[in-house]
């Protein structure tokens, strides 16, 4: 199954600034998924990123706030723009694993906005 390297693992940022999160996969994958996990809440899908096309955003998430890049089949970035304290959360990237093994996740980025 694929292995995902995600960084940074955590960051504390000032409101109004932006943070870019990177995910590197050790194999080529068609789709990469970006999730947000707020304390006590379930994983919420932000967007699906396909290589060579615009990311598909879920309801409540917009490209201006969460721009995504997918320059090749092993790499993607998620930027959290113009941050506010409400953006404090864990952000996760994910790819579909081999059949029967669900989805593989990165180790997560714990973001705190002050």
């Amino acid at each position, binding site marked *: 199954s694929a292995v995902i390297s995600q960084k940074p693992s955590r960051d504390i940022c000032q409101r109004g600034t932006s943070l870019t999160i990177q995910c590197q996969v050790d194999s080529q994958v068609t789709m990469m998924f970006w999730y947000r996990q707020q304390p006590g809440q*379930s*994983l919420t899908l932000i967007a*699906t990123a396909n290589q060579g096309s615009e990311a*598909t955003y879920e309801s409540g998430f917009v490209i201006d706030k969460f721009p995504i890049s997918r320059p090749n089949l092993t790499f993607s970035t998620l930027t959290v723009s113009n941050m506010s304290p409400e953006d404090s959360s864990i952000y*996760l990237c994910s790819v579909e694993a081999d059949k029967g093994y*669900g*989805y593989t*996740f990165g180790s*997560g980025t714990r973001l705190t906005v002050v």
Partner: protein
Amino acid sequence: EDQVTQSPEALRLQEGESSSLNCSYTVSGLRGLFWYRQDPGKGPEFLFTLYSAGEEKEKERLKATLTKKESFLHITAPKPEDSATYLCAVQGASLRQGGSYIPTFGRGTSLIVHP
């Protein structure tokens, strides 16, 4: 819309005290139900996939079962290292825009096993 409800939200057990975690779901055509373990500061770690009612899977002290409405994660004689949050997710048959079947996750059950 697919929905997943996990109970209890939190569970404290003594080492060796067996118990079960529940995952109730509604889905439009089940493609798969997943169980994950998540340790603090880490991403979810895959445990099991179940595809149809009656199916069971085991791994060490964990056993997952599936009916048409719910899944159980049975923990037999738990140890402190089993302490984690356990997440359940369902993947329905609705193809989302972008061409993917996206799983819907529950909020998880936080398990603490005391020595």
